[in-house]
């Protein structure tokens, strides 16, 4: 009886349950950071990694595609971690942005978006080639998926790729975005990702909004708005270039 009442309450107030759950996860992560790694690994980096691990556990146990949010009482995670709150919070971080910092890397930042799309696309297309795919539609769709998991399916749909290839391109984008979240804090120092200009270039090169926002949160939250500023143009640029210009190039090479 008490259990029924509790489940009903949790379902009616799912967002509040998510706040409590994430709060506990954050506390746990910061304790781990302090006691186990003596601050070497940032608490937020641990929290994001734990989030991804829990998403895996949730996905395996429910068979759904929303990670932990598919687990009965934790549906609120999908609202709290959904696009609306994410965008809202990213925009809020811009309050401390200095216009001069934006201008300093403005040109290279916008340039990096184009380079980023071309680079990821080329890598993805070459991998497709290496695995024996010869159909230009397939190569283009997989290349687009290596850009982001939105560019992939948009391109695939525009070119009429089969659904298993579209699924493959989404998977490539997912791998990229999750990897960016995990790897960024580990390699940030080595690639010089410690200032607003580098963050703008990083955002433009990576392009995946979730990867970039997670990666910078785990590295240095002050850099978030700079990375997000350029990353926000990436998916659009990819959807513009991949099914048109890049497809024509691939087709020319393939024939």
């Amino acid at each position: 009886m008490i259990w029924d009442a509790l489940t009903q309450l949790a379902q009616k107030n799912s967002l509040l349950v998510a706040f409590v759950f994430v709060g506990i996860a954050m506390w746990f992560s910061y304790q781990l950071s302090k006691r186990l790694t003596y601050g070497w690994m940032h608490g937020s980096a641990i929290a994001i990694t734990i989030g991804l691990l829990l998403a895996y556990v949730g996905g395996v146990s429910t068979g759904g595609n929303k990670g932990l949010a598919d687990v009965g009482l934790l549906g609120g995670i999908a609202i709290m971690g959904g696009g609306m709150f994410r965008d809202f919070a990213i925009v809020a971080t811009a309050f401390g942005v200095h216009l001069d910092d934006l201008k300093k890397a403005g040109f290279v930042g916008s340039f990096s978006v184009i380079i980023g799309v071309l680079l990821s696309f080329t890598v993805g297309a070459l991998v497709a080639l290496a695995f024996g795919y010869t159909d230009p539609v397939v190569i283009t769709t997989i290349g687009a998926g290596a850009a982001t998991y939105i560019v992939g399916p948009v391109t695939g749909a525009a070119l009429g790729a089969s659904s298993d290839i579209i699924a493959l391109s989404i998977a490539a984008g997912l791998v990229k975005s999750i990897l960016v979240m995990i790897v960024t804090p580990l390699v940030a120092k080595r690639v010089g990702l410690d200032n607003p200009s580098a963050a703008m270039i990083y955002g433009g090169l990576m392009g995946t909004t979730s990867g970039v926002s997670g990666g910078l949160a785990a590295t240095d939250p002050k850099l978030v708005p700079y990375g997000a500023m350029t990353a926000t143009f990436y998916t659009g640029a990819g959807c513009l270039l991949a099914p048109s210009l890049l497809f024509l190039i691939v087709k020319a090479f393939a024939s």
Partner: protein
Amino acid sequence: MVIYGVAILAACTLGGLFLGDLLGQALNVQANVGGVGFAMLFLILLANLPKKYFNIDVMSREGVAFWSSMYIPIIVAMAAKQDVVTAVASGTVAIIAGVLAVAASFAMIPVLMRFVIDKEGGGT
């Protein structure tokens, strides 16, 4: 008042996303182009307006600061709802394409940093 800050933030976000949607339609792409970026620009411009035109008082600032400090928990929730199973089980093509794309992009950061015009300050 705190709600003024939250309202300004929400209005900027909505305005930016709307502009991004319009731009996406104009370019004939099925995606939002730069919505979050425009929203951030609106907020930055508002915050930098001369005080006599637009003065965000201390309490209004707190409305924005609160959501800014909620950023990391929201990102943790976002991480917890990712489709990690699909990514892990996706097979070699997807994994190799994703891994190499990330590696190549990271390697490009130091290269592009050479083109930053003004390297003074900011610790570069």
